[in-house]
């Protein structure tokens, strides 16, 4: 008993901070999870290489910032607001394009030939692993396996302080944290609108529901699948830029764990469901940070995976549960 009350006393004062940190981390999970969930919704395929789609995005935005003249550690002062917006826009666009392109490339090289052969799903997983290893190692070779720094573009400034009173310490919320969470919500909203309102979105939903019928109705299945990968890649690019701003250093091997967490988030929310990816990401970030606050920081990843196992055992369809094909179809 003593153990738990001690832990509780450790946790309680930091509760506010943990919630804020958890939501921020969760927003990044959510953005990556969108890619997993889109592809899974359409193809029932775990795109194991999606973590590397995210990875190339992080490098792309740093490279573009370098071209514009902002590299890590060159002593540049934090740029003015206009420049920041320009830089963020350029970085996000570059990351999204590179990530989207990589996702489509993976689809064409590693998945499309197998789809034509109607291979079992296990084989897709193996080529996905191959693609994941190859991309991450290629990036490692190109960067000499050294971590890269990120230029300081946004000075974290406290915008407001959440003060819940009682024995909980007041938690400051920075502009960066607000921006990250808002971006995730906006990105989800854009994707959701695209899926539900546009012609292409209709095609995606049709293929997700029943590929053969969709083909009979004149939907080009191959194009829809490529589009799905592209959309997932775009969201991963946004996640990559935000991750750069939040973490500040990147290296060629960050993809694996982050990808696994994002997949956990997608499953947690209900895989194949965009809203589920958002909710799952935020919940995962929140719970794992609270768990880390309770059990100690070194258990943070264990908490995340235990949650995954528990969710799959008791509610394999996730929190929200319905799939892309059936969602408001």
């Amino acid at each position, binding site marked *: 008993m003593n153990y738990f009350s001690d832990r509780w006393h450790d946790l309680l004062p930091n509760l506010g901070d943990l919630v804020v940190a958890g939501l921020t981390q969760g927003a990044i999970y959510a953005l990556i999870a969108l890619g997993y969930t889109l592809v899974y919704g359409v193809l029932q395929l775990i795109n194991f290489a999606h973590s590397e789609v995210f990875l190339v995005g992080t490098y792309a935005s740093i490279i573009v910032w370098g071209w514009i003249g902002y590299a890590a550690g060159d002593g540049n002062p934090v740029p003015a607001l206009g420049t920041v917006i320009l830089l963020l826009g350029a970085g996000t666009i570059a990351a999204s394009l590179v990530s989207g392109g990589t996702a489509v490339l993976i689809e064409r090289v590693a998945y499309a*030939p197998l789809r034509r052969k109607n291979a079992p799903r296990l084989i897709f997983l193996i080529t996905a692993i191959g693609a994941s290893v190859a991309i991450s190692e290629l990036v490692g070779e190109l960067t000499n396996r050294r971590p890269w720094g990120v230029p300081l573009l946004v000075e974290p400034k406290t915008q407001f302080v959440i003060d819940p009173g009682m024995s909980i310490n007041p938690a400051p919320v920075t502009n960066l944290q607000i921006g990250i969470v808002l971006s995730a919500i906006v990105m989800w909203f854009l994707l959701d609108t695209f899926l539900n309102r546009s012609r292409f979105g209709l095609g995606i939903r049709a293929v997700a529901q029943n590929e053969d019928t969709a083909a009979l109705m004149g939907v080009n299945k191959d194009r829809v699948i490529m589009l799905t990968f592209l959309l997932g890649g775009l969201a991963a690019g946004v996640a990559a830029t935000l991750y750069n701003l939040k973490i500040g250093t990147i290296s060629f091997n960050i993809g694996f764990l982050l990808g696994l967490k994002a997949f956990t988030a997608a499953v947690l929310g209900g895989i194949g469901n965009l809203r589920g990816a958002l909710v799952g990401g935020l919940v995962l970030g929140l719970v794992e940070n609270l768990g880390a606050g309770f059990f100690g920081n070194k258990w943070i990843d*264990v908490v995340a995976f235990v949650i995954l196992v528990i969710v799959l055992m008791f509610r394999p369809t996730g929190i929200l549960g319905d799939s892309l094909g059936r969602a408001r179809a």
Partner: protein
Amino acid sequence: MTTLKERYYAVADGVRKAEAGRQKWAQGLRGRWQSIPKPVRLLAGLAGVVLLFALPNIAIPGIPFRTDEIPNGIGFSFVLSTIAIYVLVAVGLNVVVGMAGLLDLGYIGFYAVGAYTVAIFGSPDSIVATKYPWLICVPIAIALTMVSGVILGTPTLRLRGDYLAIVTLGFGEIIRLVAVNLRVTNGQRGIPSVPAPDEAHVDWNVFGWFRIKFDFDLDIFTPMDARPYYWLALVLIIVVILAVRSMERSRVGRSWLAIREDEDAASIMGVESFKFKLWAFAIGAAIGGLSGALFATRNVFVNSGNFNLLLSVMFVAAIVLGGQGNILGVVLGTVIVFYLPERFRFLSTKRELVFGLALIVIMVLRPQGLWPSRRRARELQDRKLEAKEAAAGA
């Protein structure tokens, strides 16, 4: 003007003939092997086994297959013993993945449980410090891994396919992280002085009735020479392969096959799918535990760095590459995946890049693996035909 239907049949027929022609060569090879009289086949197999045992001492001038013949190469017998241990892992994983068709991506967890059990109960430097001899640790390790297999399997085997893959992936990572963080396993610093298989230092007083005292060290297994470990691993591999093969041909094996090909149909025909899936999991886990125990004593030292998830994924890749379901194919795949990177060390860091690309190319060209089981190959062939016929019909 032919009708659409006629054209469809013509195309489907052509596809079938082309596939049959392509299969002929491999089948011819297999057929020729089968037509050799049995005693000769047995003799040839025996010669192969003898060759395997002699392998650490063989060097052929002109064919530098030994890993210590290249610059910066690692001792050949050490590499061989590592590969042999991994082959044992792969044979165990093949029971789960290849025979029962359950995708287990966290198999390394069982391997880790086996290795840590031996280290914790055997090493004088662990917290427990029971100092059991290796031969006593091994059954404990096997029992514990079987139990952990059942504990993991009971809730998760009701899930299907990909979900199972991800839960097992999570399980493998949890085991590793627990090993990093717990005091018993001592994290990155690890547990040193794991006992060798041929030493025992025991002085037990059993309930005060009688005393068991052993104190010997034959010094056959030493850290200087990895060959005895390689030979021990080979013996274990042969025993395990024989056991698994006979299981494959028994009622249990046929149930696995039925579950793998169509679980619903199997259940309807009265196969207790959950029970047999759990058996596959437990047996696979036990073999994983055994190989972990072997690994711990070969390495003398066990720490959390030995059990990362990528290795687990590599095992699955090795099995699928070699040809899941076929034990010899699996052995071939494992040797390729773990030997080639050692042999081609001069590619240094680029070898993993090459490995990733090779994995894609091979799987795209040969989804059934390099040396598949006949039945598996036929299943895949069927699927391919269906796809082609559907395309031709559309």
